[in-house]
Protein backbone atom coordinates (compact mmCIF):
# COMPACT_ATOMS: atom_id res chain seq x y z
CA UNK A 1 0.00 0.00 0.00
CA UNK A 2 3.01 2.27 0.22
CA UNK A 3 2.52 3.35 -3.36
CA UNK A 4 -0.66 5.28 -2.54
CA UNK A 5 0.65 7.10 0.51
CA UNK A 6 1.76 10.39 -0.92
CA UNK A 7 5.02 11.73 0.39
CA UNK A 8 3.57 14.58 2.45
CA UNK A 9 5.14 17.99 2.97
CA UNK A 10 8.29 18.44 4.94
CA UNK A 11 7.29 19.05 8.59
CA UNK A 12 5.29 15.83 8.86
CA UNK A 13 8.09 13.87 7.20
CA UNK A 14 10.57 15.26 9.70
CA UNK A 15 8.25 14.35 12.56
CA UNK A 16 7.92 10.79 11.26
CA UNK A 17 11.66 10.36 10.92
CA UNK A 18 12.12 11.95 14.34
CA UNK A 19 9.80 9.46 16.02
CA UNK A 20 11.38 6.52 14.20
CA UNK A 21 14.92 7.55 15.11
CA UNK A 22 13.97 8.20 18.71
CA UNK A 23 12.51 4.69 18.86
CA UNK A 24 15.75 3.34 17.37
CA UNK A 25 17.63 4.98 20.22
CA UNK A 26 15.30 3.50 22.84
CA UNK A 27 15.81 0.01 21.43
CA UNK A 28 19.57 0.43 21.02
CA UNK A 29 20.46 2.15 24.30
CA UNK A 30 20.30 -0.96 26.51
CA UNK A 31 22.67 -2.74 24.12
CA UNK A 32 25.01 0.27 24.10
CA UNK A 33 24.93 0.46 27.89
CA UNK A 34 25.64 -3.25 28.12
CA UNK A 35 28.62 -2.88 25.79
CA UNK A 36 30.23 0.20 27.29
CA UNK A 37 29.72 -1.01 30.86
CA UNK A 38 31.42 -4.30 29.99
CA UNK A 39 34.57 -2.39 28.94
CA UNK A 40 34.75 -0.20 32.05
CA UNK A 41 36.71 -0.65 35.25
CA UNK A 42 34.72 -0.97 38.50
CA UNK A 43 36.04 2.45 39.56
CA UNK A 44 34.87 3.93 36.27
CA UNK A 45 31.40 2.50 36.88
CA UNK A 46 31.17 4.10 40.31
CA UNK A 47 32.39 7.52 39.20
CA UNK A 48 30.87 7.73 35.73
CA UNK A 49 27.30 7.16 34.58
CA UNK A 50 25.43 4.74 32.32
CA UNK A 51 26.10 6.57 29.08
CA UNK A 52 29.58 7.89 29.85
CA UNK A 53 32.26 6.21 27.74
CA UNK A 54 34.93 4.28 29.66
CA UNK A 55 37.93 6.44 30.64
CA UNK A 56 40.18 3.39 30.26
CA UNK A 57 38.85 0.76 27.91
CA UNK A 58 39.59 -2.62 29.42
CA UNK A 59 38.65 -6.22 28.68
CA UNK A 60 39.08 -7.24 32.33
CA UNK A 61 35.31 -7.61 32.65
CA UNK A 62 35.23 -10.00 29.70
CA UNK A 63 38.16 -12.19 30.76
CA UNK A 64 36.83 -12.32 34.30
CA UNK A 65 33.32 -13.22 33.12
CA UNK A 66 34.73 -15.89 30.80
CA UNK A 67 37.05 -17.68 33.22
CA UNK A 68 36.97 -16.38 36.82
CA UNK A 69 33.58 -15.05 37.85
CA UNK A 70 31.59 -16.89 40.50
CA UNK A 71 28.36 -18.55 39.42
CA UNK A 72 27.17 -19.74 42.79
CA UNK A 73 29.76 -21.86 44.62
CA UNK A 74 32.10 -22.29 41.67
CA UNK A 75 34.31 -19.52 40.34
CA UNK A 76 35.36 -20.66 36.87
CA UNK A 77 33.52 -18.07 34.84
CA UNK A 78 30.82 -18.83 32.28
CA UNK A 79 33.01 -20.50 29.64
CA UNK A 80 32.05 -24.05 30.66
CA UNK A 81 28.34 -23.18 30.61
CA UNK A 82 28.73 -21.47 27.25
CA UNK A 83 29.98 -24.76 25.76
CA UNK A 84 27.25 -26.64 27.64
CA UNK A 85 24.72 -24.51 25.82
CA UNK A 86 26.30 -25.43 22.48
CA UNK A 87 26.41 -29.12 23.36
CA UNK A 88 22.74 -28.94 24.27
CA UNK A 89 21.53 -26.64 21.50
CA UNK A 90 23.18 -28.17 18.42
CA UNK A 91 21.85 -31.75 18.77
CA UNK A 92 18.44 -30.56 20.00
CA UNK A 93 18.08 -28.19 17.04
CA UNK A 94 19.14 -30.81 14.49
CA UNK A 95 17.00 -33.62 15.88
CA UNK A 96 13.87 -31.52 16.34
CA UNK A 97 14.22 -30.02 12.86
CA UNK A 98 14.71 -33.41 11.18
CA UNK A 99 11.77 -34.91 13.06
CA UNK A 100 9.71 -31.85 12.19
CA UNK A 101 10.58 -32.16 8.50
CA UNK A 102 9.47 -35.81 8.31
CA UNK A 103 6.36 -35.16 10.40
CA UNK A 104 5.43 -32.19 8.25
CA UNK A 105 5.92 -34.33 5.13
CA UNK A 106 3.63 -37.06 6.44
CA UNK A 107 0.99 -34.69 7.82
CA UNK A 108 0.73 -32.85 4.50
CA UNK A 109 1.41 -35.47 1.82
CA UNK A 110 0.72 -38.88 3.39
CA UNK A 111 -2.36 -38.21 5.46
CA UNK A 112 -3.91 -41.21 7.13
CA UNK A 113 -6.86 -41.77 9.41
CA UNK A 114 -5.93 -39.97 12.60
CA UNK A 115 -3.23 -37.75 11.09
CA UNK A 116 -5.41 -34.67 11.52
CA UNK A 117 -5.89 -35.62 15.14
CA UNK A 118 -2.12 -35.81 15.58
CA UNK A 119 -1.80 -32.42 13.95
CA UNK A 120 -4.38 -30.99 16.33
CA UNK A 121 -2.51 -32.49 19.27
CA UNK A 122 0.71 -30.84 18.14
CA UNK A 123 -0.99 -27.51 17.51
CA UNK A 124 -2.40 -27.49 21.01
CA UNK A 125 0.98 -28.57 22.35
CA UNK A 126 2.47 -25.28 21.15
CA UNK A 127 0.30 -23.39 23.60
CA UNK A 128 0.55 -25.49 26.75
CA UNK A 129 2.34 -23.65 29.59
CA UNK A 130 5.39 -25.76 30.37
CA UNK A 131 4.77 -25.44 34.12
CA UNK A 132 2.19 -28.15 33.67
CA UNK A 133 4.76 -30.77 32.56
CA UNK A 134 7.79 -29.80 34.67
CA UNK A 135 7.28 -32.01 37.68
CA UNK A 136 6.48 -35.29 35.86
CA UNK A 137 9.34 -34.61 33.44
CA UNK A 138 11.75 -34.08 36.34
CA UNK A 139 10.58 -37.37 37.88
CA UNK A 140 10.96 -39.20 34.53
CA UNK A 141 14.45 -37.84 33.87
CA UNK A 142 15.44 -38.93 37.36
CA UNK A 143 14.14 -42.47 36.70
CA UNK A 144 15.97 -42.63 33.37
CA UNK A 145 19.20 -41.45 34.99
CA UNK A 146 19.16 -38.34 32.80
CA UNK A 147 18.60 -35.77 35.53
CA UNK A 148 21.24 -33.02 35.46
CA UNK A 149 22.69 -34.19 32.14
CA UNK A 150 23.00 -32.47 28.80
CA UNK A 151 21.40 -35.53 27.18
CA UNK A 152 18.35 -35.02 29.38
CA UNK A 153 18.08 -31.38 28.30
CA UNK A 154 18.42 -32.35 24.63
CA UNK A 155 15.57 -34.83 25.05
CA UNK A 156 13.37 -32.22 26.74
CA UNK A 157 14.04 -29.62 24.07
CA UNK A 158 13.31 -32.12 21.30
CA UNK A 159 9.99 -33.13 22.85
CA UNK A 160 8.76 -29.58 23.38
CA UNK A 161 10.27 -28.21 20.17
CA UNK A 162 8.98 -30.79 17.74
CA UNK A 163 5.44 -29.37 17.81
CA UNK A 164 6.75 -26.08 16.41
CA UNK A 165 9.06 -27.58 13.81
CA UNK A 166 6.29 -29.90 12.59
CA UNK A 167 3.99 -26.91 12.17
CA UNK A 168 6.62 -25.04 10.16
CA UNK A 169 7.19 -27.91 7.75
CA UNK A 170 3.58 -29.01 7.51
CA UNK A 171 2.43 -25.51 6.58
CA UNK A 172 5.25 -25.21 4.06
CA UNK A 173 4.66 -28.57 2.37
CA UNK A 174 0.89 -28.09 2.18
CA UNK A 175 1.54 -25.41 -0.43
CA UNK A 176 3.47 -27.81 -2.68
CA UNK A 177 1.11 -29.34 -5.30
CA UNK A 178 0.06 -32.92 -4.61
CA UNK A 179 0.18 -33.60 -8.34
CA UNK A 180 3.96 -33.50 -8.11
CA UNK A 181 3.92 -36.29 -5.53
CA UNK A 182 1.37 -38.27 -7.51
CA UNK A 183 3.47 -38.09 -10.66
CA UNK A 184 6.53 -39.31 -8.79
CA UNK A 185 4.54 -42.21 -7.35
CA UNK A 186 3.41 -43.26 -10.81
CA UNK A 187 7.08 -43.34 -11.77
CA UNK A 188 7.61 -45.76 -8.91
CA UNK A 189 9.18 -43.43 -6.37
CA UNK A 190 8.63 -44.41 -2.75
CA UNK A 191 8.14 -42.52 0.49
CA UNK A 192 11.76 -41.59 1.08
CA UNK A 193 12.69 -41.09 -2.58
CA UNK A 194 9.92 -38.53 -2.96
CA UNK A 195 11.05 -36.74 0.17
CA UNK A 196 14.75 -36.63 -0.66
CA UNK A 197 14.47 -36.08 -4.42
CA UNK A 198 11.46 -33.78 -4.68
CA UNK A 199 10.66 -32.02 -1.39
CA UNK A 200 14.09 -31.65 0.16
CA UNK A 201 15.57 -29.59 -2.70
CA UNK A 202 12.63 -27.17 -2.29
CA UNK A 203 12.97 -26.96 1.48
CA UNK A 204 16.00 -24.74 2.09
CA UNK A 205 14.01 -21.70 3.28
CA UNK A 206 11.87 -23.64 5.75
CA UNK A 207 14.92 -25.50 7.05
CA UNK A 208 16.55 -22.13 7.71
CA UNK A 209 13.44 -20.88 9.51
CA UNK A 210 13.22 -24.00 11.64
CA UNK A 211 16.94 -24.16 12.45
CA UNK A 212 17.10 -20.49 13.43
CA UNK A 213 13.87 -20.53 15.40
CA UNK A 214 14.93 -23.61 17.33
CA UNK A 215 18.44 -22.29 17.90
CA UNK A 216 17.13 -19.06 19.39
CA UNK A 217 14.48 -20.78 21.49
CA UNK A 218 16.77 -23.44 22.90
CA UNK A 219 19.80 -21.21 23.44
CA UNK A 220 17.64 -18.65 25.24
CA UNK A 221 15.72 -21.14 27.35
CA UNK A 222 15.96 -20.66 31.07
CA UNK A 223 13.04 -22.63 32.55
CA UNK A 224 14.14 -26.11 31.46
CA UNK A 225 17.75 -25.32 32.26
CA UNK A 226 17.03 -24.21 35.79
CA UNK A 227 14.66 -27.08 36.54
CA UNK A 228 16.39 -30.02 34.85
CA UNK A 229 20.09 -29.14 35.14
CA UNK A 230 22.33 -28.38 38.03
CA UNK A 231 26.00 -27.70 38.59
CA UNK A 232 28.20 -28.62 35.68
CA UNK A 233 25.47 -29.31 33.15
CA UNK A 234 23.76 -25.92 33.38
CA UNK A 235 23.29 -23.86 30.23
CA UNK A 236 24.62 -20.31 29.92
CA UNK A 237 21.31 -18.61 30.77
CA UNK A 238 21.22 -20.30 34.17
CA UNK A 239 24.90 -19.54 34.78
CA UNK A 240 24.34 -15.89 33.87
CA UNK A 241 21.43 -15.65 36.29
CA UNK A 242 23.54 -17.27 39.03
CA UNK A 243 26.46 -14.95 38.32
CA UNK A 244 24.28 -11.85 38.53
CA UNK A 245 22.64 -13.06 41.74
CA UNK A 246 25.84 -14.17 43.46
CA UNK A 247 26.13 -11.78 46.35
CA UNK A 248 29.60 -12.66 47.60
CA UNK A 249 32.11 -9.83 47.40
CA UNK A 250 31.79 -6.50 45.63
CA UNK A 251 29.27 -6.31 42.80
CA UNK A 252 31.15 -5.97 39.52
CA UNK A 253 28.74 -4.67 36.93
CA UNK A 254 31.34 -4.79 34.16
CA UNK A 255 31.58 -8.56 34.70
CA UNK A 256 27.78 -8.89 34.75
CA UNK A 257 27.45 -7.01 31.48
CA UNK A 258 30.29 -8.93 29.80
CA UNK A 259 28.66 -12.21 30.84
CA UNK A 260 25.32 -10.98 29.49
CA UNK A 261 27.03 -10.09 26.19
CA UNK A 262 28.61 -13.54 26.02
CA UNK A 263 25.20 -15.15 26.56
CA UNK A 264 23.61 -12.87 23.96
CA UNK A 265 26.25 -13.03 21.22
CA UNK A 266 25.36 -16.35 19.53
CA UNK A 267 21.70 -15.45 19.03
CA UNK A 268 22.57 -11.86 18.08
CA UNK A 269 25.00 -13.10 15.43
CA UNK A 270 22.38 -15.48 14.06
CA UNK A 271 19.85 -12.66 14.02
CA UNK A 272 22.17 -10.31 12.17
CA UNK A 273 23.27 -12.95 9.64
CA UNK A 274 19.88 -14.52 9.02
CA UNK A 275 17.34 -12.02 10.35
CA UNK A 276 15.03 -12.60 7.39
CA UNK A 277 14.43 -16.20 8.43
CA UNK A 278 14.13 -15.26 12.08
CA UNK A 279 11.30 -12.84 11.31
CA UNK A 280 9.60 -15.41 9.12
CA UNK A 281 9.76 -17.91 11.98
CA UNK A 282 8.29 -15.40 14.41
CA UNK A 283 5.38 -14.56 12.18
CA UNK A 284 4.80 -18.20 11.24
CA UNK A 285 4.88 -19.13 14.91
CA UNK A 286 2.25 -16.55 15.72
CA UNK A 287 -0.19 -17.36 12.95
CA UNK A 288 -0.30 -21.03 13.74
CA UNK A 289 -2.40 -23.38 11.67
Amino acid at each position, binding site marked *: *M*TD*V*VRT*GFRPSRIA*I*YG*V*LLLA*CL*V*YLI*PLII*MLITSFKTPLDIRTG*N*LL*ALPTDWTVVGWTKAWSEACTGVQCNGVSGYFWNSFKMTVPAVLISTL*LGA*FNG*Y*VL*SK*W*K*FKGSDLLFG*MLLFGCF*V*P*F*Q*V*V*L*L*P*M*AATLGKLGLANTTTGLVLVHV*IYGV*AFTTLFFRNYYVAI*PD*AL*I*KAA*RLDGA*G*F*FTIFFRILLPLSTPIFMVSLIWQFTQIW*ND*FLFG*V*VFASGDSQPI*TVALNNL*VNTSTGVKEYNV*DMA*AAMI*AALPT*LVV*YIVAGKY*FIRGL*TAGSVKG
Partner: protein
Amino acid sequence: MEHIQRRPAGVARASSGLMDGLQRWLPKLVVAPTFVLVGIGIYGYMLWTGVLSFTSSSFLPSYDFIGLGQYAKLMESERWLVASKNLAIFGGLFIVSCLLIGVALAIFLDQRIRQEGAIRTIYLYPMALSMIVTGTVWRWILNPRLGLEKLMHDWGWTSFSFDWLVDSDLAIYTIVMAAVWQASGFVMALFLAGLRGVDSSIIRAARVDGASLPVIYCRIILPSLRPVFFSSVMVLAHIAIKSFDLVMAMTAGGPGYSTDLPAVFMYSHTFTRGQMGLGSASAMLMLGAILALLVPYLYSELREKRHD
Protein backbone atom coordinates in the same frame (compact mmCIF):
# COMPACT_ATOMS: atom_id res chain seq x y z
CA MET B 1 -5.94 -34.58 -12.08
CA GLU B 2 -8.63 -32.54 -10.37
CA HIS B 3 -9.76 -35.15 -7.86
CA ILE B 4 -6.21 -36.02 -6.83
CA GLN B 5 -5.48 -32.49 -5.74
CA ARG B 6 -8.54 -32.44 -3.59
CA ARG B 7 -7.75 -35.76 -1.97
CA PRO B 8 -4.08 -36.00 -1.04
CA ALA B 9 -4.90 -38.94 1.21
CA GLY B 10 -5.72 -40.90 -1.91
CA VAL B 11 -2.08 -40.83 -2.97
CA ALA B 12 -1.09 -43.59 -0.60
CA ARG B 13 -4.08 -45.72 -1.43
CA ALA B 14 -3.75 -45.33 -5.18
CA SER B 15 -0.59 -47.38 -5.45
CA SER B 16 -0.46 -51.12 -5.79
CA GLY B 17 2.55 -53.33 -5.83
CA LEU B 18 4.89 -55.36 -3.74
CA MET B 19 5.98 -52.48 -1.55
CA ASP B 20 2.40 -51.46 -0.94
CA GLY B 21 2.17 -52.77 2.60
CA LEU B 22 5.41 -51.19 3.71
CA GLN B 23 4.62 -47.95 1.94
CA ARG B 24 1.32 -47.75 3.73
CA TRP B 25 2.94 -48.23 7.11
CA LEU B 26 5.98 -46.01 6.55
CA PRO B 27 4.22 -42.66 7.14
CA LYS B 28 2.77 -43.94 10.38
CA LEU B 29 6.11 -45.33 11.47
CA VAL B 30 7.78 -42.00 10.76
CA VAL B 31 5.38 -39.99 12.92
CA ALA B 32 5.14 -42.64 15.62
CA PRO B 33 8.10 -41.37 17.71
CA THR B 34 6.64 -37.86 17.77
CA PHE B 35 3.21 -39.23 18.59
CA VAL B 36 4.63 -41.17 21.54
CA LEU B 37 6.90 -38.35 22.79
CA VAL B 38 4.21 -35.68 22.58
CA GLY B 39 1.48 -38.02 23.81
CA ILE B 40 3.43 -38.78 26.96
CA GLY B 41 5.45 -35.57 27.30
CA ILE B 42 2.55 -33.18 26.92
CA TYR B 43 -0.74 -34.98 27.43
CA GLY B 44 0.36 -37.72 29.81
CA TYR B 45 2.31 -35.29 31.97
CA MET B 46 -0.54 -32.82 31.96
CA LEU B 47 -2.77 -35.53 33.44
CA TRP B 48 -0.04 -36.54 35.88
CA THR B 49 0.27 -32.95 37.13
CA GLY B 50 -3.51 -32.85 37.37
CA VAL B 51 -3.48 -35.98 39.54
CA LEU B 52 -0.71 -34.56 41.75
CA SER B 53 -2.73 -31.41 42.29
CA PHE B 54 -5.31 -33.49 44.16
CA THR B 55 -2.71 -35.04 46.50
CA SER B 56 -0.84 -33.89 49.55
CA SER B 57 2.58 -34.22 47.79
CA SER B 58 5.27 -32.20 49.51
CA PHE B 59 8.98 -32.85 48.83
CA LEU B 60 8.26 -36.04 46.87
CA PRO B 61 5.21 -36.98 44.83
CA SER B 62 2.76 -38.97 46.94
CA TYR B 63 -0.64 -40.35 46.03
CA ASP B 64 -2.55 -39.53 49.16
CA PHE B 65 -5.64 -37.86 47.72
CA ILE B 66 -7.09 -34.88 49.52
CA GLY B 67 -9.61 -33.70 46.94
CA LEU B 68 -9.60 -29.99 46.21
CA GLY B 69 -7.56 -29.16 49.31
CA GLN B 70 -4.60 -27.71 47.41
CA TYR B 71 -6.86 -25.50 45.32
CA ALA B 72 -8.58 -24.24 48.45
CA LYS B 73 -5.19 -23.54 50.01
CA LEU B 74 -4.14 -21.72 46.86
CA MET B 75 -7.19 -19.46 46.98
CA GLU B 76 -6.43 -18.53 50.57
CA SER B 77 -2.75 -17.99 49.90
CA GLU B 78 -1.79 -14.34 50.10
CA ARG B 79 1.18 -15.03 47.87
CA TRP B 80 -0.95 -16.59 45.12
CA LEU B 81 -3.30 -13.59 45.26
CA VAL B 82 -0.32 -11.27 44.82
CA ALA B 83 0.96 -13.40 41.92
CA SER B 84 -2.45 -13.38 40.22
CA LYS B 85 -2.87 -9.66 40.75
CA ASN B 86 0.62 -9.08 39.36
CA LEU B 87 -0.24 -11.13 36.31
CA ALA B 88 -3.30 -8.96 35.73
CA ILE B 89 -1.23 -5.76 36.06
CA PHE B 90 1.73 -7.09 34.11
CA GLY B 91 -0.33 -8.83 31.42
CA GLY B 92 -2.69 -5.89 30.93
CA LEU B 93 -0.03 -3.19 30.74
CA PHE B 94 2.32 -5.39 28.71
CA ILE B 95 -0.26 -6.26 26.07
CA VAL B 96 -1.70 -2.75 25.77
CA SER B 97 1.73 -1.04 25.64
CA CYS B 98 3.13 -3.50 23.11
CA LEU B 99 0.09 -3.06 20.88
CA LEU B 100 0.13 0.74 21.04
CA ILE B 101 3.87 1.00 20.41
CA GLY B 102 3.92 -1.77 17.83
CA VAL B 103 1.00 -0.41 15.81
CA ALA B 104 2.33 3.15 15.93
CA LEU B 105 5.81 2.10 14.78
CA ALA B 106 4.35 -0.08 12.03
CA ILE B 107 2.24 2.79 10.68
CA PHE B 108 5.19 5.20 10.79
CA LEU B 109 7.43 2.66 9.09
CA ASP B 110 4.85 2.17 6.36
CA GLN B 111 5.32 5.74 5.05
CA ARG B 112 8.03 4.97 2.48
CA ILE B 113 10.87 5.31 4.92
CA ARG B 114 14.47 5.26 3.78
CA GLN B 115 16.54 2.51 5.42
CA GLU B 116 13.34 0.79 6.48
CA GLY B 117 15.09 -2.57 6.63
CA ALA B 118 17.79 -1.33 8.99
CA ILE B 119 15.27 0.37 11.28
CA ARG B 120 13.13 -2.78 11.38
CA THR B 121 16.18 -4.82 12.30
CA ILE B 122 16.87 -2.49 15.21
CA TYR B 123 13.28 -2.65 16.50
CA LEU B 124 13.22 -6.41 16.44
CA TYR B 125 16.63 -7.45 17.73
CA PRO B 126 15.53 -7.63 21.41
CA MET B 127 13.33 -10.60 20.44
CA ALA B 128 16.51 -12.55 19.67
CA LEU B 129 17.84 -12.05 23.20
CA SER B 130 17.24 -14.30 26.17
CA MET B 131 14.95 -12.77 28.77
CA ILE B 132 17.74 -13.41 31.26
CA VAL B 133 20.00 -11.08 29.25
CA THR B 134 17.21 -8.50 29.01
CA GLY B 135 16.58 -8.78 32.73
CA THR B 136 20.28 -8.42 33.57
CA VAL B 137 20.62 -5.27 31.49
CA TRP B 138 17.45 -3.62 32.71
CA ARG B 139 18.32 -4.44 36.28
CA TRP B 140 21.57 -2.55 35.76
CA ILE B 141 19.89 0.38 34.00
CA LEU B 142 17.32 0.69 36.78
CA ASN B 143 19.90 0.24 39.53
CA PRO B 144 18.68 2.61 42.26
CA ARG B 145 22.08 4.21 42.90
CA LEU B 146 24.30 3.81 39.84
CA GLY B 147 21.78 3.52 37.06
CA LEU B 148 19.30 5.95 35.55
CA GLU B 149 19.27 8.01 38.73
CA LYS B 150 23.00 8.75 38.56
CA LEU B 151 22.73 9.53 34.85
CA MET B 152 20.04 12.15 35.52
CA HIS B 153 22.04 13.60 38.40
CA ASP B 154 25.10 13.90 36.16
CA TRP B 155 22.98 15.59 33.53
CA GLY B 156 21.89 18.20 36.08
CA TRP B 157 18.53 16.88 37.28
CA THR B 158 19.72 16.44 40.86
CA SER B 159 16.33 15.87 42.47
CA PHE B 160 15.60 12.90 40.20
CA SER B 161 15.04 9.68 42.07
CA PHE B 162 14.10 6.31 40.66
CA ASP B 163 14.06 3.29 42.93
CA TRP B 164 11.08 1.36 41.56
CA LEU B 165 13.19 -1.80 41.31
CA VAL B 166 13.40 -2.07 45.09
CA ASP B 167 9.96 -0.62 45.88
CA SER B 168 7.56 -3.48 46.52
CA ASP B 169 4.60 -1.48 45.18
CA LEU B 170 6.30 -0.37 41.99
CA ALA B 171 8.79 -3.12 41.11
CA ILE B 172 6.28 -4.95 38.92
CA TYR B 173 6.20 -1.93 36.57
CA THR B 174 9.94 -2.20 35.94
CA ILE B 175 9.31 -5.72 34.67
CA VAL B 176 6.61 -4.35 32.36
CA MET B 177 9.16 -1.85 30.96
CA ALA B 178 11.72 -4.50 30.16
CA ALA B 179 9.13 -6.85 28.68
CA VAL B 180 7.68 -4.10 26.47
CA TRP B 181 11.18 -3.19 25.30
CA GLN B 182 11.72 -6.80 24.31
CA ALA B 183 8.42 -7.65 22.63
CA SER B 184 7.01 -4.45 21.11
CA GLY B 185 9.17 -4.78 17.99
CA PHE B 186 7.56 -8.14 17.37
CA VAL B 187 4.08 -6.58 17.30
CA MET B 188 5.49 -3.98 14.91
CA ALA B 189 6.68 -6.74 12.56
CA LEU B 190 3.29 -8.48 12.62
CA PHE B 191 1.38 -5.28 11.89
CA LEU B 192 3.82 -4.11 9.23
CA ALA B 193 3.30 -7.42 7.42
CA GLY B 194 -0.45 -6.89 7.81
CA LEU B 195 -0.28 -3.32 6.47
CA ARG B 196 1.61 -4.52 3.42
CA GLY B 197 -1.26 -6.89 2.68
CA VAL B 198 -3.97 -4.19 2.69
CA ASP B 199 -5.58 -3.70 -0.69
CA SER B 200 -4.34 -0.34 -1.94
CA SER B 201 -7.34 0.32 -4.18
CA ILE B 202 -9.55 0.77 -1.10
CA ILE B 203 -7.23 3.43 0.23
CA ARG B 204 -6.99 5.15 -3.12
CA ALA B 205 -10.78 5.28 -3.24
CA ALA B 206 -10.94 6.74 0.27
CA ARG B 207 -8.41 9.40 -0.67
CA VAL B 208 -10.47 10.33 -3.72
CA ASP B 209 -13.43 10.77 -1.38
CA GLY B 210 -11.32 13.25 0.56
CA ALA B 211 -10.53 11.20 3.67
CA SER B 212 -7.35 12.23 5.49
CA LEU B 213 -4.59 9.77 6.27
CA PRO B 214 -5.32 9.44 10.03
CA VAL B 215 -9.00 8.83 9.26
CA ILE B 216 -8.12 6.21 6.66
CA TYR B 217 -5.92 4.40 9.17
CA CYS B 218 -8.42 4.52 12.04
CA ARG B 219 -11.56 3.78 10.05
CA ILE B 220 -10.41 1.52 7.24
CA ILE B 221 -6.95 0.03 7.58
CA LEU B 222 -6.73 -0.87 11.26
CA PRO B 223 -10.23 -2.40 11.44
CA SER B 224 -9.29 -4.60 8.48
CA LEU B 225 -6.30 -5.89 10.46
CA ARG B 226 -8.46 -7.49 13.14
CA PRO B 227 -6.97 -10.97 12.63
CA VAL B 228 -3.44 -9.58 13.14
CA PHE B 229 -4.69 -7.83 16.25
CA PHE B 230 -6.13 -11.06 17.66
CA SER B 231 -3.07 -13.16 16.97
CA SER B 232 -0.84 -10.46 18.53
CA VAL B 233 -2.96 -10.42 21.68
CA MET B 234 -2.88 -14.21 21.73
CA VAL B 235 0.91 -14.39 21.51
CA LEU B 236 1.45 -11.55 24.00
CA ALA B 237 -0.95 -13.06 26.52
CA HIS B 238 0.83 -16.36 26.10
CA ILE B 239 4.19 -14.69 26.80
CA ALA B 240 2.72 -12.93 29.85
CA ILE B 241 1.23 -16.06 31.41
CA LYS B 242 4.45 -18.01 30.92
CA SER B 243 6.71 -15.13 32.03
CA PHE B 244 9.27 -16.47 34.38
CA ASP B 245 12.78 -15.72 33.13
CA LEU B 246 12.41 -11.96 33.21
CA VAL B 247 11.16 -11.87 36.80
CA MET B 248 13.87 -14.29 37.92
CA ALA B 249 16.57 -12.14 36.32
CA MET B 250 15.29 -8.76 37.46
CA THR B 251 13.87 -9.25 40.93
CA ALA B 252 13.65 -13.02 41.59
CA GLY B 253 10.11 -12.25 42.76
CA GLY B 254 11.23 -9.66 45.29
CA PRO B 255 11.23 -7.45 47.23
CA GLY B 256 9.63 -10.16 49.38
CA TYR B 257 7.20 -11.77 46.95
CA SER B 258 5.87 -8.52 45.55
CA THR B 259 6.78 -9.31 41.91
CA ASP B 260 5.78 -12.97 41.92
CA LEU B 261 3.94 -14.15 38.84
CA PRO B 262 2.08 -17.50 38.76
CA ALA B 263 5.01 -19.10 36.90
CA VAL B 264 7.43 -17.97 39.62
CA PHE B 265 5.03 -19.11 42.33
CA MET B 266 4.77 -22.54 40.67
CA TYR B 267 8.53 -22.89 40.36
CA SER B 268 9.38 -21.89 43.89
CA HIS B 269 6.67 -23.98 45.55
CA THR B 270 7.32 -27.07 43.46
CA PHE B 271 11.10 -27.08 43.32
CA THR B 272 12.47 -25.10 46.24
CA ARG B 273 9.81 -25.02 48.95
CA GLY B 274 8.74 -28.66 48.80
CA GLN B 275 5.03 -28.09 48.20
CA MET B 276 4.54 -30.13 45.06
CA GLY B 277 0.78 -30.51 45.52
CA LEU B 278 0.28 -26.77 45.78
CA GLY B 279 2.69 -26.15 42.90
CA SER B 280 0.79 -28.61 40.71
CA ALA B 281 -2.51 -26.95 41.55
CA SER B 282 -1.06 -23.59 40.52
CA ALA B 283 0.22 -25.10 37.25
CA MET B 284 -3.25 -26.46 36.50
CA LEU B 285 -4.77 -23.01 37.06
CA MET B 286 -2.20 -21.57 34.62
CA LEU B 287 -3.28 -24.18 32.08
CA GLY B 288 -6.88 -23.20 32.75
CA ALA B 289 -6.06 -19.55 32.05
CA ILE B 290 -4.41 -20.45 28.74
CA LEU B 291 -7.35 -22.65 27.77
CA ALA B 292 -9.79 -19.85 28.56
CA LEU B 293 -7.91 -17.74 25.99
CA LEU B 294 -7.13 -20.47 23.52
CA VAL B 295 -10.49 -22.18 23.07
CA PRO B 296 -12.40 -19.10 21.88
CA TYR B 297 -9.41 -18.13 19.70
CA LEU B 298 -9.09 -21.50 17.98
CA TYR B 299 -12.88 -21.72 17.68
CA SER B 300 -13.07 -18.39 15.84
CA GLU B 301 -10.04 -19.31 13.69
CA LEU B 302 -11.56 -22.61 12.63
CA ARG B 303 -14.95 -21.02 11.98
CA GLU B 304 -13.38 -18.37 9.78
CA LYS B 305 -11.53 -21.05 7.82
CA ARG B 306 -14.77 -22.89 7.21
CA HIS B 307 -16.41 -19.71 5.93
CA ASP B 308 -13.65 -19.08 3.41
